[in-house]
């Protein structure tokens, strides 16, 4: 009995740690969520549609692409193609996470995959790297993922209620950008990571105007290829 109380406390603590770690990243998520709902209404969609897309899709970037392309009258394959390209980075996140949850049941894999957002990946990857031997480590991912989900839905509701309160001058993408800057900051001082970041940043800027938002995966593939080269041919660069 003591054992079960102890383990359930551990689970509870790890879950709470996930919530705590992901909270700072939710400031831009909340702003983006409100903006998304406001934009939906402005484009003539119903409040049910704004909430429905967030509940079913739960991916800010894909939702934004969807409503803007749909309003622009894009054909279905362009909409689906753009969404797939935008989501392609999830394959890389999956490749990293799979080693942490490979022994978990199918239900766990389905639940954790549903909550796998950029923010969840960012903080739980850091945690799991250090604590993968703990059999409850995946509760961190559950905590961070569910937090982003709740904040996203609530901010959508607030956006629907408050209407157009967002200033046109503020770039919401910029808010998202600075949270991810904070996440890679600790690696900027390492030469190998710095070179990968520099190449990926340069590629994303050069290829930004490619169709279907392909710049994200082009930059990621370039960065990963360089990481492979560094780890096979130029190991001296790793410190």
């Amino acid at each position, binding site marked *: 009995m003591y054992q079960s109380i102890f383990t359930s406390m551990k689970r509870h603590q790890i879950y709470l740690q996930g919530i705590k770690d992901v909270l700072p990243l939710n400031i831009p998520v909340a702003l983006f969520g409100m903006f998304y709902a406001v934009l939906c209404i402005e484009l003539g969609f119903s409040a049910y549609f704004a909430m429905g897309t967030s509940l079913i899709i739960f991916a800010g970037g*894909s939702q934004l692409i969807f409503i803007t392309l749909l309003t622009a009258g894009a054909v279905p394959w362009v909409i689906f193609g753009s969404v797939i390209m935008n989501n392609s980075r999830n394959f890389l996140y999956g490749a990293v996470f*799979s080693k942490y949850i490979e022994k978990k049941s199918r239900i766990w894999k389905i639940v954790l995959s549903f909550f796998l957002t950029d923010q969840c990946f960012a903080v739980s990857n850091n945690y799991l790297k250090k604590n993968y031997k703990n059999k409850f480590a995946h509760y961190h991912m559950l905590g961070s993922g569910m937090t982003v989900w709740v904040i996203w839905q609530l901010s959508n509701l607030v956006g629907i209620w408050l209407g157009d309160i967002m200033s046109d001058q503020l770039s919401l993408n910029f808010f998202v950008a*600075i*949270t991810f800057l904070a996440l890679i900051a600790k690696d900027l001082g390492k030469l190998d990571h710095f070179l990968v970041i520099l190449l990926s940043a340069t590629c994303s800027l050069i290829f930004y105007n490619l169709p279907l938002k392909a710049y994200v995966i082009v930059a990621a593939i370039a960065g990963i290829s360089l*990481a492979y080269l560094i780890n096979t041919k130029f190991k001296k660069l790793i410190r």
Partner: protein
Amino acid sequence: MNIWTYTIIIGVLTFLSRYVVTAYANTKTYSETTKKVLSYVPSAVFPSLIFPAVFYHNTNFEIYNYEVLAFVFALIAAYFSKNILVTVIVGLLSYIAIIFMI
């Protein structure tokens, strides 16, 4: 096509992109090099979520704008504090201050 049909298809596509590799990758076949290279995923993916948002306005590349200036402040905060909350707050406040002051 009905907008709800679109929504459900996009929901399924998004879920599959998160689920397929997470659930079915055979990590036992990962070589040591693959494991090391995968540790670079944040460094390879996050810059494309950061830099275009700072340097692009719609489809135009801009080297000098409010975002770039605020980004420099956030970068300094990120590098020295290595703290997410500090970076977010410095970035947000400097961005809002720059917009209202300039």
